[in-house]
């Protein structure tokens, strides 16, 4: 979902850059407070590794029927592990590194950060939270609830992010709006399945290996 340079008009680029910067600045403040509560000496390298994992997984394009491919975006995944505000910053940094390789534009960085970090991360996190509130009424184990909620949340978030990206591309006039929306949503309904499965597997594995790494349990409101 990396929008390249030259696709968006200057107004869209500017608005999305401003929006992304605002969210990133809020994220910096929130993260600072999180470091007060958690052991920041251990947390910082952990966040660095998460960013590297997301970068690596975004490199792995799995085939999707119909002649396209998909890859993990990881916004919702990072948000569930580290919190919604950390996901904005992590995704932005990953996008910066990727732009060095020409994967996603530099002027389009604001748009990509908005779509993948804010829509995929923050919105995805709160979708997961809503689903968990429903699953709390069941007898499922905590890790199963979070895994299922992450899968569904990541799936919905990726489709929403694709829809928003289509709006941006269509409003910019690069391709007709109705064509952009139809195409982007269609492909990401398929691609999102991979996002859901990979995100769920990673979350479930972390729960089994070291549940303390999921630092958002209280934020998600998951109960035993």
């Amino acid at each position, binding site marked *: *979902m*990396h*929008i*390249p*340079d*030259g*696709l968006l008009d200057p107004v869209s680029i500017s608005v999305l850059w401003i929006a992304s910067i605002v969210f990133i600045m809020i994220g910096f403040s929130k*993260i*600072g407070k999180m*470091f*007060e509560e958690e052991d*920041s000496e251990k*947390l*910082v*390298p952990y*966040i*660095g*590794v*998460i*960013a*590297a994992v*997301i*970068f*690596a997984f975004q*490199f*792995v*394009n*799995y*085939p*999707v029927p119909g*002649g*396209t*491919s*998909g890859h993990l975006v990881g916004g919702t995944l990072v948000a569930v592990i580290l919190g919604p505000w950390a996901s904005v*910053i*992590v995704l932005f*940094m*990953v996008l*910066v*590194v*990727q*732009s*060095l*390789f*020409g994967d996603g*534009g*530099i002027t389009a960085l604001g748009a990509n950060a908005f779509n993948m970090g804010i829509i995929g991360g923050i919105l995805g996190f709160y979708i997961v939270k809503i689903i968990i509130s429903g699953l709390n009424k069941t007898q499922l184990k905590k890790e199963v609830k979070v895994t299922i909620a992450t899968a569904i949340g990541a799936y919905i978030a990726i489709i929403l992010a*694709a829809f928003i*990206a*289509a709006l941006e591309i269509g409003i910019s006039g690069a*391709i*007709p709006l109705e*064509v*952009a929306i139809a*195409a*982007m949503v269609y*492909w*990401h309904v*398929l*691609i999102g399945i991979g996002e859901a499965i990979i995100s769920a597997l990673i979350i479930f594995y972390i729960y089994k290996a070291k549940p303390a790494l999921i630092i958002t349990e209280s934020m998600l409101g998951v109960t035993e």
Partner: protein
Amino acid sequence: MSIGFVLGFLSEDPDGLERSIIDATGGGEEGEAWIESLPSPWDPILGWIENDYIAGLIGVLLSVILMISVFYLIIFIHKNRAIKKE
């Protein structure tokens, strides 16, 4: 990544966004040429790396360094503010 590349699990096909644009701008080679022709204000600094393994390794390293630097900066600024308040 290594296993994926070796086994051919990874796909060379364009991703969802690229596919949408390619199909909307003529499809096939015409669409791909259209994407390639989009203007860019800069040449990617590491875009010359063609080997996916090397690109992946460098990217992972850069991600770790950048992310750790940013978050240590956040801690540094936060602690300084806390000290000034005292």
